[in-house]
């Protein structure tokens, strides 16, 4: 089982949303990392077959997905970023509707719906209208519909948005169980959601693929660049202005412990840290300080792979 994204590009008028991306997705959980507007959703829509690439193609087991048509959609599950539903439908009605569209036998679908609702802890709202559910519950209905047909290829665009920490943990566990012998691609900018469950990651920026690899492989890219130190609380604004600070924790003695990204330590008491995926993400998509902004410009378009 293999999903191949082959030199795929998508152009909207003058803007290239996805620029010549090639990616070979094998069974396991894949994290698609990128900032807002990086092109994640466009790439996922093309993999889902609901958007046609300007150039390139997506192949499933060597066959273009357009050629497979119904055959591809039969083994496919998708949760888009914006989960649209019918406001007049209850959870049960909606899932029965999607189950029919997915070709689940009529007798089997109630059992499957119950099973999935238990997995996503929604059995209490079985007969409740989706419109009346909380954001997190709606998201879980979305996840349940994507899993209805037990898909071989599952694409989830920002699936954890709106989920509380407990729900996110349950979601991660559910996905880990599910992903065995299946291709799961999760797009997110919430790095911890994929850090521990994703086999591999693909990082995209401005429509281009910056890096692919396992968590261990990718974090090596920021090895020697993640530091921690303790600074006086009053010095925080100054450090923030010139460093990319990953985390900041107040200590009891009035000092502050910071974790930051930099090519070199900013003071003598800085110690090297073991890098995490989030450090890589922030290194590639810097949010703050001056040095990092300069780094971004300098490395723009560079391919790490």
């Amino acid at each position, binding site marked *: 089982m293999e999903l191949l994204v082959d030199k795929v590009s998508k152009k909207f008028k003058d803007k290239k949303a996805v620029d010549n991306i090639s990616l070979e997705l094998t069974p396991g959980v894949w994290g698609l990392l990128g900032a807002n507007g990086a092109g994640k959703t466009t790439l996922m829509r093309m993999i889902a077959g609901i958007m046609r690439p300007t150039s390139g193609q997506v192949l499933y087991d060597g066959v273009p997905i357009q050629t497979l048509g119904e055959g591809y959609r039969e083994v496919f599950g998708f949760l888009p970023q914006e989960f649209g539903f019918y406001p*007049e439908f209850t959870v049960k009605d909606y899932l029965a509707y999607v189950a029919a569209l997915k*070709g689940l036998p009529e007798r089997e679908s109630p059992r499957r719906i119950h099973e999935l609702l238990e997995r996503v802890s929604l059995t209490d709202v079985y007969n409740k209208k989706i419109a009346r559910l909380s954001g997190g519950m709606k998201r879980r209905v979305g996840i349940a519909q994507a899993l209805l047909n037990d898909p071989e290829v599952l694409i989830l665009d920002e699936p954890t948005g709106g989920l509380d920490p407990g729900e996110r943990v349950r979601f991660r566990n559910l996905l880990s169980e599910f992903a065995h012998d299946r291709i799961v691609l999760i797009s997110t900018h919430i790095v911890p959601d994929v850090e521990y469950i994703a086999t591999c990651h693909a990082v995209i920026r401005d429509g281009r693929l910056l890096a692919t690899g396992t968590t261990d492989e990718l974090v090596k890219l920021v090895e020697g660049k993640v530091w921690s130190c303790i600074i006086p609380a009053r010095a925080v604004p100054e450090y923030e202005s010139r460093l990319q600070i990953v985390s900041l924790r107040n200590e009891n003695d009035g000092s502050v412990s910071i974790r930051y990204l930099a090519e070199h330590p900013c003071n003598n008491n800085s110690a090297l840290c073991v890098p995490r995926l989030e450090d890589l993400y922030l290194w590639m998509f810097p949010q703050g300080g001056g040095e990092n902004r300069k780094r971004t410009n300098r490395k723009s378009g560079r391919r790490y792979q």
Partner: protein
Amino acid sequence: MRILFLELKRVMKSKLTWILLALALLLSLLLAWLPTTYCYSNYTDEDGNEVNLTGLASIAHEKERQADAAGIVTPQRVREAVETYQACLSSYGVTESYDLPEGVYEREILPIAPLLHGVKEAFADPDTGMAPAIMEIDPEQIDDYYSVCEARITSLMAMEQPDSPGAQGKAIKMYRNVEKPFEVYPGMNSTVLDYQNIMGFLVLLFCVVIAAPVFSADYQSGADDILRCTRYGMVSLGMAKLFAALLISTAAFVICVAVHILAAGSLFGWECTRTSVQMMYSIVTLADMDIGGLQFLFAASGLLSVLASVSFTLFLSARCRTTVSSLASSLVFCIAPVVISMTAPGALGTWLCSILPASGTSIQASVLYAITDFQFLNLAGLSVWTPYAMIGACVIEIPLFAFLAVRSYCRHALN
């Protein structure tokens, strides 16, 4: 079938659908009853008191007064009616019935009035089209009444379609084929059919409002992204949505029109539906049918028009990205025949009104008015009576726009 059933269930779960369908049913009853409220008659009773009657009482009274006129409209009966009319007016020294003293019309002319329908029109001047007063008509000429009528359609078509001998020939041929003598059964008037037209138009609007969001609402909410990724989420779902909308529209229209016809027939009397259309509309109307047949034909063509409009609306819905745009554009096309019939006279207006999907039940430009009119569409020597063109256009448009709607849905957002 399962997807179709679920799609039907989905549409029927919407409160808006139920509100519109209930409103349509209510309006069907209301619009069947309303024409009775316009019926009015008055007479002087045996004690010399003036009695005013309205509604069903008025209808019953007129039916009773005109009972002798009911039946086959033979030239002999028309002649006798004209002679009675002329004798009555002469005895009072007037030339028009509205100059008669109070109570005389009700007593002497009203009982024969149904037989006088169309007499003036039949004897209209062939060159000017001006109708004479009944007093000016020579009763002896009425002995050959239906030949006079045939001569009238010849002169009328020469005036209406001077540049189209084909249309003239067809009209004359059609009129010759109309079953004669006519029949008349007093009690019903053309307002009943006008209100059937209004009812059809309103049901069409409601069906369009129900159909307009079918695809566009899914695009707008993003629900479509999930559905089209499913095994049957493309052609099968597109067709299920299409058939669900067409089925609901068909059921709504058939029920509403049946309720309207049943209610109107019950209120005015079923025998009235046996009246020849020529005895309610123009005496030279080309359609060979009675009022019941006209009601049925109008209902059938109205249904085709509703289905064509819904197919077209679904096509627009599959093309538009938002519910507002699909609804607005659909309503514009529903109202277009009304606007065109008022603003674009001549061949262009006739053509547009004949081919637009909503024309069949449009106010002022529907199949009903086309049947009682003498318009022909002329193209390259071919002349087609507009009701045929309207029905033919709908028959073509239903599968055409249905196909385009499903195709547009399947291709939506791909690029």
